[in-house]
């Protein structure tokens, strides 16, 4: 049994045919005022102790799903439970057991110091001041923010602020921690620190669970026990990162850097090339290829040579979640973001 007397076999999160639509206003572009479907029948089970990731482009429905689960949003239809509690009818009980941290969050009050701000939030959970301050100090040490504890929140950098938000999320020691793109906009070092700590936190506490939304492939691969790929409100794949990569294992993957490619070089039509994605990289082009077999790389090299494009590097790579995403959705994550106006 857990702290609330609930059996440990009860999943951390369970949704069944979850649908959420938003009403829209009539406009020249939307004369029928058609509702936007943000979640389109999400069925999901996250067991206790799991670090679960939701991966998808902007507008895929990741944040909407989190907002339903943390009781900020009612589902239009379907069911959602957190630690066995219905998010619609038992919202208060759900709130006793969860915590949420969002990326780019500017919550709190700038004139408070870090320690004061965290103390304020600890009071909303009813933590006695003495133990709360001890815990705050301990957590600040862990995330490397202890020396800044007396600094005003308004004077923190984005990375420091997000570390502070992470401490806030961990203060009540929640059964389920919801992290909505917690490292978005952070520099590499700050993002790494946060990833390291949340990984440690969940693995040190076998009964705690984390639901993380991200559109960083490497983050999902590094942190999550399982990942669901969400696109246009639907889960298009859900498995461990390794199992998902296996799904993309048909064929082989190469990454090349070449002289800049332009429209004159069309690799999609080369025999044996299933997919070719080109993106600019430091004045060169990065070419990611999904080939039917290794032999097809020779045709690619010949085509590049015929167009007088030098190859700076050529590497055969293991399929990543990026490739899985491309296979499932038919476009790269960045492309999906760009179609919606980018992050």
């Amino acid at each position, binding site marked *: 049994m857990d702290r609330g007397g609930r059996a440990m076999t009860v999943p951390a999160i369970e949704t069944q045919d979850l649908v959420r639509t938003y009403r829209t206003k009539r406009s020249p572009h939307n004369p029928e005022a058609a509702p936007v479907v943000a979640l389109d029948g999400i069925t999901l089970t996250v067991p206790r102790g799991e670090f679960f990731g939701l991966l998808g482009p902007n507008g895929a429905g990741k944040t909407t799903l989190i907002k339903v689960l943390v009781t900020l949003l009612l589902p239009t239809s379907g069911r959602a439970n957190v630690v066995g509690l219905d998010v619609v009818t038992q919202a208060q009980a759900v709130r006793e057991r969860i915590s949420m941290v969002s990326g780019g969050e500017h919550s709190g*009050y700038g*004139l408070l110091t870090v320690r004061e701000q965290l103390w304020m939030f600890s*009071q909303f959970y*009813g933590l006695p001041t003495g133990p709360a301050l001890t815990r705050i100090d301990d957590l600040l040490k862990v995330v490397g923010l202890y020396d800044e504890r007396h600094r005003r929140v308004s004077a923190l950098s984005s990375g420091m602020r997000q570390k502070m938000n992470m401490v806030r999320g961990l203060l009540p020691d929640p059964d389920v921690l919801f992290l909505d793109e917690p490292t978005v906009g952070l520099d590499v070092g700050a993002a790494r620190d946060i990833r390291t700590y949340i990984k440690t936190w969940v693995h040190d506490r076998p009964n705690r669970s984390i639901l993380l939304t991200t559109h960083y492939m490497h983050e999902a691969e590094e942190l999550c026990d399982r990942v669901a790929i969400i696109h246009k409100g639907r889960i298009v794949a859900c498995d461990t990162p390794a199992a998902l990569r296996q799904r993309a294992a048909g064929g082989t993957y190469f990454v090349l850097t070449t002289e800049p490619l332009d429209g004159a070089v069309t690799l999609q039509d080369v025999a044996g090339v299933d997919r070719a994605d080109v993106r600019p990289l430091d004045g060169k082009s990065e070419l990611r290829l999904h080939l039917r077999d290794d032999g097809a790389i020779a045709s690619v090299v010949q085509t590049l040579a015929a167009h007088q494009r030098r190859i700076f590097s050529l590497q055969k790579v293991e399929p990543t979640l990026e490739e899985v995403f491309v296979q499932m959705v038919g476009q790269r994550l960045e492309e999906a973001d760009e179609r919606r106006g980018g992050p």
Partner: protein
Amino acid sequence: MSVQTLTPARGAARTIRAMLGRSYPRIIGANRERSWLFYDTVLPLLGTVAFVYVYKALGAPERFIGYVIMGGATTAFWLNVMWSMAAQFYWDKQGGNLELYMVVPCGVPAILLGMSLGGMVATVLRAIAIVLLGSWLFHVDYSLVQIPLFVLVFAVAIVALYGLGVTFASLFLLWGREAWHTANLFMEPVFLVSGFYFPVSALGFWVGMGASIIPLTLALDAMRQLLFPSVHPGLLPVSWELGILVGLAALFIVVARLSLKKMEFLARREGRLSLRF
């Protein structure tokens, strides 16, 4: 450290902790940015003084100066309710605090009460400054003999007023700028019909009774009757006004609870608790 099973005692303790926690930014903010001492005491006093000179110019009886000073002091509580508590949710929604307030277990009422408690420091100081400075500058004589009754009227009025404030705050769960404009819309009419700067009986009995839906109307009238006995033209006897205020306090507490519940439901349904989905 973990969240434990919630007994009624633990729930009450958490509510108090949450109130104190939310009041802290207001209190510490008042200490760290002391410019409010000028803005919240001297400037409001100037507004009150302007009305005093209007009455002096008109040759009104001396007690009217006392009415104005009482009204000026009481205005602070109305402003605290409307702008430091109810409309604060507008800024909290913009800043991302509101969604966090909604998902913490202490509940929104505790946070609202914390806001008002924190705002009380500045409010009480503003009220005291107006009463003391105004009375000293214009030599106002009060004849307060029933101090406990005066305190009781004031306390009941404050409870009713904060019930009304929580009701207003609930509007901000669902609406943003619309609720802000609504709050703005209420300010001047309330100043008028509540009789902040004149005896409400001047509006006539029925208008005065209609204005009594704002708790400060009857509270001000009762307090003026107690401060200036025998000369203040009261709308109703003090005991009646106190009884109605008790009723209003109970009513607004119930309405506030229902309104918070309903508005939270609607806001969750319409996706208004958060700016980002």
